[in-house]
């Protein structure tokens, strides 16, 4: 008898549902890191205006702005896939889960483009 101890079967074909689940987990973990960072940044409010404004200036640099656009995408994915999960759990969504997934991906994408544009348009290219 041969027992392969593996917790991932990486070569198993990934259907829509598995992608949704994998990305949901990864985006969730990413957001927890972001949350820690975010709370730390807000905490600098208590350290006075200079410190906060310094941090903010640093975060307003183009690199962080682009990261923020990415963050917005991650949030949107996690949020809308979360809604999909709730629909599956309580509103008979399992039957058409793929359709729901694609609809939400489209909605999230549109919101991402709109929000992303607003975020980038804030960039002060020249200090």
């Amino acid at each position, binding site marked *: 008898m041969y027992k392969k101890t593996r917790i991932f079967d990486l070569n198993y074909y990934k259907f829509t549902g598995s992608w949704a689940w994998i990305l949901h987990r990864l985006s969730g973990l990413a957001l927890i890191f972001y949350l820690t960072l975010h709370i730390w940044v807000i905490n600098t409010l208590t350290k006075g*205006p200079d410190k906060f404004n310094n941090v*903010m200036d640093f975060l307003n640099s183009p690199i962080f702005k682009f990261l923020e656009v990415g963050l917005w995408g991650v949030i949107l994915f996690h949020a809308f896939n979360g809604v999909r999960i709730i629909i599956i759990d309580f509103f008979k969504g399992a039957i058409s889960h793929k359709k729901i997934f694609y609809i939400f991906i489209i909605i999230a994408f549109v919101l991402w483009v709109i929000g992303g544009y607003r975020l980038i348009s804030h960039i002060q290219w020249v200090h």
Partner: protein
Amino acid sequence: MGYRWLSFNFSYSMGTLGGIMKKGFRETSKKGGIPWLIQRISAVIIFVIIMIHFVTYHLLSEGAFKWDKVVSKMKSPWFNLMQFLLLCTVLYHGLNGVWMVVEDYIHIKGLRLFLFSLIIVVGISLFFVGVLTIIKVSNFNLEILRAGVIK
């Protein structure tokens, strides 16, 4: 009997809270159903608040964040209540999510226990940092600060 799952009914989510109070959190949480439900309820709350947060902060506001702009916003008790609620739900939702991942993949007892304590410690410290920030900032006297009396 019947097609009750057709429509979400709120009676049981309210009932759940009662159930937790009656049976005690430890017993119900061992089963896994109550965290599952709270995960979903908190998700809905977070969804709403984050969207408001993002729209008001990033989509509608002009220019970069400046210290006094943020602080003046945090003078509103409603805003702070919302922030507090967001802090609680996000911490629960996020850390419970991490715990679920840990439970799925970590089977070594010691490591599991360590990660569990880590999650608790991180959760509690982030909670206090967050709450203290809200309290402290909302108590700032803007006029004095602007005058630069306090460093």
